[in-house]
């Protein structure tokens, strides 16, 4: 059995979920449940911190897409942070690197989000 630990915390930009362990068809439902529990407002950004993720298969990819659909329906945005190289390779194979904004870490994700919300100048 695979192991996945998810910790959720609030940031000024919106909820951030840190994933640690393996994301496969055994553990993907955990991520879906965690995302369902998150309170997400319009104009917020949900960040999935993947820095602790050791494995991701097609079920994990599905969970990412479901998360994206959910945030877009709420009028919110979604971004990935701290994606390790082996996970990035999977994302590239399925083309998700073109769909999800990728950031080095949660802090950068929040900063970029703040910048896009309050662009300089009128």
């Amino acid at each position, binding site marked *: *059995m*695979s*192991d996945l630990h998810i910790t959720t915390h609030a940031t000024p930009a919106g909820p951030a979920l840190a994933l640690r362990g*393996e994301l496969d*068809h055994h553990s993907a439902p955990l991520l879906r449940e965690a995302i369902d529990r998150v309170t997400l407002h319009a104009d917020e950004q949900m960040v999935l911190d993947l820095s602790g993720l*050791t*494995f991701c*298969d*097609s*079920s994990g*990819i*599905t969970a990412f*897409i*479901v998360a994206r*659909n959910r945030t877009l329906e709420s009028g919110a945005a979604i971004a990935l942070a701290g994606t390790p190289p082996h996970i990035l390779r999977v994302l*590239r*194979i*399925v*083309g*998700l690197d*073109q*769909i999800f904004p990728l950031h080095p870490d949660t802090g950068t994700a929040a900063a970029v989000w703040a910048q896009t919300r309050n662009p300089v100048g009128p």
Partner: protein
Amino acid sequence: MTCGTGHGRESAGSGPGSGVSLEASFSALLEDDIDDLYENAPCGYLSTLLDGQIAKANTTLLTWLGYRREEMVGRMRFTDLLTVGGKLYHETHFGPLLRMQGGVRGIALELKAADGTRLPVLVTSTVKAGADGEPQLVRTTLVDARDRRAYEQELLRGRQEAEAAREQAERDRARLQSVLATLQQSLLPPSLPVVPGLEAAAHYHTASPDHLGGDFYDLFTLGNGRWGFFLGDVCGKGPEAAAVTSLTRYTLRAAALHDADPVTVLGILNTALHEKYASGDARYCTVIFGTLTPRDDGFAVSLASGGHPPVLVTRADGTARYLPTPGGCLVGALPDAPFTAVTTTLAPGDTLLLYTDGLTEARIGTGSGGERYGDDALLDFAARLSPVTPGAAITAVTELLRGFGDGLDDDTAVLCLGVPSVTPIEESS
């Protein structure tokens, strides 16, 4: 209570003559008429001679059965009151037991009434011996067992209904399994077609026989000597995944017949899947679609990937490499997914290997943190095989999958297409 005195006082025996008067009143009630007690007892009484002839019967029994006394006494035998089955039972069990033991208790039999109706009774018989100890006659009591029979029938009916429900459930289960097997079979091509100048082989590993798999592949004609092929993986398992697999297969085939350009075909599939599954749960697939066009002594290959792991190609010169298709996006998740095309040629001795990620994501380590097989290992594996025919490659991959044992917990499909190094035409000339 007919006695006016209190219970406590009575048992204490106080009061002159009170005990005597109670006894007398009970006697009056209980023994006033022994005949009446016999005739109208709450059970049937029957006395028969040793040959079974009825010598005496009480009113209760006569009433139950609807006989007049003179019709029964001296004219009928006990067995005349029994059903055919009862007669048989009496002959083989009841009678012998009675003779052997001098009594039989609580046997369930059915009596036949004068009007033909049946009366279930519990029968107890004892043999009465005379002063000389020789058997004289048989005394029999018959207890009305209609309530008991009704209860038994309720139990029986309940059991029969439960049994019927179980049988129905088993039939339904068998039917569902057969439907499931048929559907699953329909998701895979029954066999690969014979393509002139091409060798094709495939293997499909099902992780669980109960689950409809989400992996699929096909090889089919496009007319004018051209062929289309695809291999893919629908996310998820079960009936929903199977529905996507079905839609995907038929959309790819239909789209390819219209315009076989791989990027165009994947674009049509993307539109079809996205439109159908835009709302609700994400339904998508990763797929490689390609065409084979005869050229010189081999085929020109054009293929496009929609988020699927890259194809492996082994060459006649003994090399192996991936055919990267970067930037192709999984199919059905986005309204305008980009797809990446690549072309190559298959010359004699070259083989294409298409696979789903069950192969590369099999666990090879032990325990939960087990290492995955991975694409580097797969490339090494192919390099060791190369040059290889599709048939030999499938045999080797099947062996590899078997070696994963429990580490392989996902469906896996593998399709190999290659040009034989010595074509049959060359062989015959």
